[in-house]
């Protein structure tokens, strides 16, 4: 029992802790590689954005959703050069249930502000402006199979396509978020109310005031004869639009 020094018991502790630190650093790398790629897409965490919560401005939306005035949204993923694109639920409420989506083939080049895809509803086909510049990388096959998915969960599982974008800055710069998005959405809602005020069906106005939604979509309910034009106005498919901000941002 000669000279058993205390360091003998714990001699390797320092190295062990070092190993643990290195291991944890490597773990973050390994985890990113191991975890399912679906994680990166818009559906990953199943969060739903509520249009009204944007309007109410309760806290800040816990999302990276950036809105195009034509009612499409883009979401920058953690990958530097990919954005997920979809339509917002204002568009969904306007059009009503979609019968089908015509989405571009992978490889198609999109230009921001230029029609990028179309939606079939009520027997017509309505285009929507693409929110970003880029190349379509993938489309959501689930939506192609079941268009109601895009109506049920426009911000989550109902995403439309993944687009490879050249850089993130123009996306952030040109699209609406936060307070700006709120202001714009208020304008859109007000325009909608303006249309509702002139609607032939007064009872419909009452329904809307209660927060209810007509089953066939607001456009068709409010303007059964000219609903396509109404939609096109909100989607900025017509050059002259009243009361909706266009290129202000």
């Amino acid at each position, binding site marked *: 029992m000669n000279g058993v020094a*205390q360091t003998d018991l*714990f001699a390797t502790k320092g190295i062990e802790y070092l190993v643990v630190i290195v291991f944890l650093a490597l773990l973050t790398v390994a985890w990113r590689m191991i975890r399912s790629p679906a994680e990166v897409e818009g559906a990953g965490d199943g969060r739903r*954005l509520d249009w009204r919560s944007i309007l109410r401005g309760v806290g800040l939306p816990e*999302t*990276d959703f950036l809105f195009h005035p034509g009612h499409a949204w883009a979401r920058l993923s953690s990958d530097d050069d990919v954005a997920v694109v979809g339509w917002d639920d204002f568009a969904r409420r306007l059009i009503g249930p979609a019968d089908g989506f015509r989405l571009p083939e992978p490889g198609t080049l999109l230009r921001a502000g230029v029609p990028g895809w179309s939606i079939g509803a009520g027997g017509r086909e309505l285009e929507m402006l693409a929110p970003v510049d880029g190349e379509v990388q993938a489309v959501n096959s689930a939506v192609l199979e079941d268009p109601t998915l895009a*109506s049920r969960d426009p911000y989550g599982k109902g995403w439309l396509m993944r687009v490879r974008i050249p850089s993130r800055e123009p996306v952030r710069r040109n699209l609406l978020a936060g307070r700006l998005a709120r202001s714009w959405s208020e304008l859109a809602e007000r325009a909608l109310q303006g249309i509702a005020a002139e609607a032939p069906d007064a009872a419909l106005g009452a329904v809307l005031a209660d*927060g*209810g939604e007509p089953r066939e*979509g607001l456009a068709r309910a409010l303007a059964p004869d000219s609903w396509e034009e109404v939609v096109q106005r909100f989607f900025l498919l017509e050059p002259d639009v009243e009361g909706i901000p266009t290129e202000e941002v």
Partner: protein
Amino acid sequence: MEAITSIHSDSRSGARRFARFFISELRPKGRLLTPFNLISGALILTTIVLLAIRFTGGLGTITNLSQDVPWGLWIGFDVVTGVALAGGAYVITFMVYILRIEKYEPIVRVTVLNGFLAYVFYAGALLLDLGRPWNVINPIIGNSFGFSSVLFLVAWHFLLYMMAELLEFSPVIAEWAGWPKLRRRLHALTLGAVVLGISLSILHQSGLGALYLMAKGKIHPLWYSEFIPVLFLVSSIFAGLSMVMIEGTISHKVFRDRVGRPLREGHDPIVIGLARICAGTMFAYLGLQIITFVHQGRAQWLGTGWGNWYLVEIIGLTLLPAIGFVIGAQRRNPAWIRAAAVFALLGVIINRLNVTVIGFQSHIPVRYVPSWQEIVVTMGVISAEIWVFRWVVNRMPVLDYHIPSRKRESGDSRAMTAA
């Protein structure tokens, strides 16, 4: 229509704007001369005076510590017990971020805030107890890392855990300051901070118990065992959750106007859920205590004074509150649950004090009793913590914030245009 604020302000005016904002936020809200403010203010002022005496004249000037009892109330209560009471943070973040139990989302922010502040103030209390606090930098950056020491581990874990908790809470600060980009980036780091926080918590909650392993002959056999670390870890779970329930009750009364709808509506189910978890954990804890009791051959102590005190802790302050939680949860009665939480908390406090102070060196002729100065400083530290907590809750979105809900998916589809 709201004016569209420019989102592209240059950083300099942004910094100045924030500085002005921060200074304006420093102004106190509400009445200044409330009874609570007067009492806590007096405590804090007295504490400052006492600490001046302590730092100039040595620890002996205001404490009853001795050569036989080097650790007293400040370590035994402030650090060892206080950290246990902050255990709610790692349990709640585990349930919300790992298990994704939505029910507890409304309380995650206030719990993380409490956890962070508790560690800051109780680790701070540890600094007050050090003989040479300026040398505390030695085990942190110095090259004399005492790896063999449990205290080295505990100190480092405290430091890392505080950083993890701050990281978890930082999105709230970014929201308050109006920095959405920073907020998003910080939010992305939450899962990593939570994983780190839970791992660290497991080790330092048990580590606080491991600190006393070498004091084998000094702690009364009814409380000493080689399983102290495990027992401390398990009891920190229900201690933390009981503290969450009690603080929740108080916050809802004191900060009534700050409580948002999700928290107000979700509070009762949360309390009932936590009560169930506490009951289950306490049941397991009692099982561990029984195993330890048998393993250490403690039966010989039953019937003695110490034995009776032990039973008070185990039966009166652990078994009975556990039953109280069960009854309260089954009857969905928050009053039962609150009472049980108070007693359960008391039980953990008593247990910790038994190991560290009451049962420590219990056979020496001059028993250690905390001096009034030690008690005042403890209460001063707690008061300061409550002041900071109050300041944060009154300004930042802690009790009221936008919670992304997954449940609304199915709920809303009826309101949506059905296919």
